């Protein structure tokens, strides 16, 4: 059967999506290093994208996904789904708090800790997919997915500490354009 075609989320996404928007992905009982990720989405003119939605999918601190296909014997955290949804404000900014995920297996060895990101917005007819890695993590050097990315563009996938948060931005087009994946 043919896959249904994608269409844009449009400008009024908040009507349908807001009920599940919550910048706190992990309750107080969830184990792991607490992180806050902040950033901004800009278009090819450097203008703020004020009507975008991000969805984040991640493993817990043990590196276990709360999903039936992750059958490894690693503990799950009660009440941690590993998923969150946020939208951008008038200035194109977003912010969420979660725990840093553990390492998970990849095609050729273990992957470095990362968050999986899906991007939706008006003016985008199908989602874009990218990743957030963590600055200074020793595992980044051996990550099989980062190795697929030209070295000059890898920075766009790495969140950097500053002012007590991790900063990670999305540039949709042009200078410093964020790396997006096709899977």
């Amino acid at each position: 059967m043919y896959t249904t075609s994608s269409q844009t989320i449009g400008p009024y996404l908040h009507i349908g999506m807001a009920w599940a928007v919550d910048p706190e992905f992990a309750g107080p009982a969830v184990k792991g290093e607490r992180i806050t990720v902040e950033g901004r989405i800009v278009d090819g003119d450097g203008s703020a994208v004020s009507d975008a939605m991000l969805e984040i999918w991640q493993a817990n601190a043990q590196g276990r996904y709360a999903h039936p296909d992750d059958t490894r014997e690693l503990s799950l955290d009660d009440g941690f789904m590993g998923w969150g949804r946020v939208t951008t404000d008038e200035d194109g900014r977003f912010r969420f708090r979660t725990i840093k995920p553990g390492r998970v297996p990849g095609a050729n060895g273990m992957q470095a800790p990362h968050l999986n990101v899906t991007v939706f917005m008006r003016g985008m007819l199908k989602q874009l997919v990218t990743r957030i890695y963590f600055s200074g993590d020793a595992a980044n050097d051996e990550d099989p997915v980062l190795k697929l990315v030209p070295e000059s563009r890898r920075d766009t996938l790495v969140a950097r500490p500053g002012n007590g948060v991790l900063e990670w931005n999305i540039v949709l087009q042009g200078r410093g354009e964020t790396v997006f994946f096709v899977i």
Partner: protein
Amino acid sequence: MNAKHQQGPAGYRGYDRDTQPDYLYPPYASTVKRSPSQPLVPMQATLSEITGPVFGFDRILANDADLTKQGAGDPIGERIVVTGRVLDGNARPVPHTLVEIWQANSAGRYPHRRDNHDAPIDPNFHGAGRTITDAQGRYRFVTIKPGEYPWRNHYNAWRPAHIHFSVFGPSFLTRLITQMYFPGDPLLEYDPMFMSIPDAQARQRLVSTFDWEHTIPEQALGYRFDIVLRGRDETPAENPFAA
């Protein structure tokens, strides 16, 4: 041996040719500055992508699937039933997955601060619904037929009547946001969003079909809209639908 087999569960097949729009589609003006200029980086699915969020029934409330029962009174407009199945590319139902919808009211107005179209707000219509598919992948909403409305993409631009659909499926890779249209809408062929899909048959699959079976006498017309998510890799022996 293929790397993905070393990980256990199978990966997902790519999208069928010409069924998906490109990021850059200049007739839809907002794509011009919001589409990547660099090629996307191809990668193999890993455990991160073949897994995805699992939503519980606990987050769904009684009237979430009946958009005519969310206000103090009855909304204005033509009551309709919208129902269908969520399937995967191997024609199997996708059970227990979250389906979210949102739409304009019968006058073509969204209850949203950025919608300044001069058409009435309906205080009894909030325009959002959600449900979880049953064991056979079925979903069902009761709602009001949405109105067409103008937008500023080009001179005298009007969106055909549509309902936005958001579906998750079993993994990060099956995520889909789309729009359902109505049969016989004269605006479809002039709509850049609809026309952004290269394949005419793929476009047609976004148009719901009138459905007597789900029409309720003296109550509501029924429309059927099936959604097909990406399917997992299978060997031809396992999959009678493989090419």
